[in-house]
């Protein structure tokens, strides 16, 4: 694995290997000093052409806990505002000596372009509507830590699938790991074609609720209203929101998940987020460990793994 751009580019075994590796870093993160020297001397640059404080901080925390040096490049303060191209930016930063770029861009495909312009490893931190592979690993890890495996589990991904990079990556990861996925959305919020997608589709959340192991809500963005994709947020919530009443109908063990940031009261009711089976903050917490696993897998080596594997308690969650 040279880069992490898309879940589609990984074999099932590689996904599982990353999740296994994450166990080690969850253990590291429980220590009083959650830091290992695995990537000492390596430089990780977060190249964020689109604002995302949460994802950026999660990656940077992961890099620092691996003892890598980090640099932050965000559009607000950069020469991109002066018209510098993505290619020039990447080539300039590469000249500093970069081992990995974590890339976030509002346009689908930019990490693929960047891969052709640098020798550094490229991690896709979210591109347009396309992919967000570390989020999918986080979500898979979270589900796995509750159920032991995704095999045979039924996940509904509810909401704006059409514009969601999280949904595209989650579908790939969950199905690769043996889960069944049902997309639940009005036709206007589904991709125009689902040919080749290993999913079922429903326009009726109530009909699928009782059968779920995971109810995964996507963020509903305000601007979808102006595009006439749904008549109103009120109607959206009435049909597709996880209301308190709907949360009651979920099975006792069924997980409630959301990639954040949430629109409370729109796609998810405040009561639903407070339930014991809502694992939304757990997703965030797992983010750092998963991203440590990804960066270690790309930049570290097996012998370095032993450095911390022997030093603490085992991953006995």
């Amino acid at each position, binding site marked *: 694995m040279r880069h992490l751009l898309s879940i589609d580019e990984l074999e099932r075994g590689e996904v599982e290997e990353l999740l296994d590796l994450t166990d080690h870093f969850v253990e590291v993160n429980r220590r009083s000093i959650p830091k290992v020297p695995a990537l000492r001397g390596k430089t990780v640059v977060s190249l964020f052409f689109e604002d995302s404080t949460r994802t950026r901080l999660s990656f940077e925390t992961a890099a620092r806990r691996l003892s890598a040096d980090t640099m932050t490049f965000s559009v607000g303060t950069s020469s991109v505002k002066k018209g510098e*191209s993505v290619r020039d930016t990447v080539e300039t930063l590469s000249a500093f000596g970069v081992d990995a770029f974590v890339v976030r861009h509002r346009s*689908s495909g*930019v990490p*693929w372009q960047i891969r052709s312009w640098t020798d550094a490893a490229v991690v896709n931190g979210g591109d347009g509507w*396309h*992919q967000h592979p570390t989020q999918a690993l986080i979500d898979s890890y979270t589900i796995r830590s509750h159920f032991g495996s995704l095999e045979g589990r039924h996940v509904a991904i509810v909401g704006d699938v059409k514009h969601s990079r999280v949904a*595209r990556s989650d579908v790939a990861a969950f199905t690769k790991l043996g889960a069944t996925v049902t997309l639940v959305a009005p036709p206007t919020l589904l991709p125009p074609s689902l040919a080749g*997608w290993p999913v079922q589709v429903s326009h009726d959340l109530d009909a699928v609720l009782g059968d779920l192991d995971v109810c995964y809500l996507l963020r509903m963005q305000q601007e979808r209203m102006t595009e006439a994709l749904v008549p109103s947020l009120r109607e959206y919530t009435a049909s597709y929101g996880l209301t308190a009443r709907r949360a009651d109908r979920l099975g006792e063990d069924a997980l409630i998940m959301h990639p954040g940031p949430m629109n409370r009261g729109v796609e998810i009711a405040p009561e639903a987020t407070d339930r014991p089976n809502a694992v939304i903050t757990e997703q965030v917490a797992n983010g750092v460990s998963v991203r440590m696993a990804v960066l270690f897998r790309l930049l570290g080596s097996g012998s370095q793994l032993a450095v911390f594997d022997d030093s603490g308690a085992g991953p006995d969650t």
Partner: protein
Amino acid sequence: MDEYVIKGGRVIDETGERFADVAVRDGVVVAVGPELHGSRTLDASGCVVAPGLVDLHTHLRQPGKEEAETVETGSRAAALGGYTAVLAMPNTTPTIDGAAVVREVQELGRGALCDVEVSGAITVGRAGEALAPMAEMAELGVRIFTDDGTGVQDTRLMRRALEYASGLGVTLAQHCEDSALSEGTCMHEGEWSSRLGLPGQPAEAEELMVMRDIALVRLTGARMHFLHLSTAGSVAMVAAAKSSGLPITAEAAPHHFTLTDACCASYDATFKVHPPLRTEADVAAVRAGLADGSIDAIATDHAPHPAHEKERPFDQAPPGMLGLEYALALAITELGLDLAQVLALLSWRPARIAGIADRHGGPVGEGRPANLCVIDPDATWTIEAGGGASRSSNVPYVGRQVRGRVRHTIRSGEVVVLDGEAQR
């Protein structure tokens, strides 16, 4: 080289084919027949001698975007591709929407390596709001008007434009795209756009305007040319409208009979074009339309863009790809047609649509202007990166093996391409 004989070739034109030498003097064909002799000869053994090719759809980018292409560089690419005439599209800066800019481009064309015919915009600034002064441009020889790059969205304005154009004897050419369905999109809507997370435009964005304009042709009786048809539905509608006797012609671009939307999976904006690359079924329909004559002509939609612009994110990069040096070989290689059919699509039919059949595309015969190309139909070659003579290099065919190569191009008697090399 004022006087010479093209020796040893097989002449193919609209009247048929025969082995014959062709004698040229002072820009005119003076004799066609066996065993002609002259003080100088141009070798055509094993080759086909044909009327020069005519491109109905060339973006020369001048004035305004000389970093991408100039009349000189574009015409050199054209000559290397076997073209003796190209129709320059009016989406320049400023727009070719009045006599002054028409004259400017005509003036630039005088130094070119092929004839540069100028098209004019239908509406002022291609803004789709007010008719451009078509009569003043027609006076200068403009025969085709188009807002190419966009379609005229306002149905009432398009009706008036057709009516007005019919009074001038000129032809309107439409870029069919309903902007309500296409705005903000960057590829074909379907399986690939869904997977790639890119906003797509459905085939219907093109087909709605084809449908509307067929109705407007029926209403007005005016002549109409459809630019770069790309969908199976468009081809079927145009075929039906033509067989009902409406005065309609149509073209298709080489990329629409060779490439599909799957190419966009690389996120390489070289494959971004309007109308977008479509599905395999659409490619098959375009090929069938070219074979059965529903589509009259192959037109390149040669659209140069500088590398740094094509390196922008896929959804932000400008649409378009090069075509002038590749169209003939792609047609020979991909369409499975007789060479005479390929030449009809590339030479005499487009010459007639452009209104220049008196000078281009006509039979290779005594007294005709010597606008000719000499093609080695069996030569195989590999399309290379770099873009040839164009100032730009946005070539979507790099690495592709093709058959058929232009050996010489003769424009008004001047040998502008000799043995595959531009002479100036």
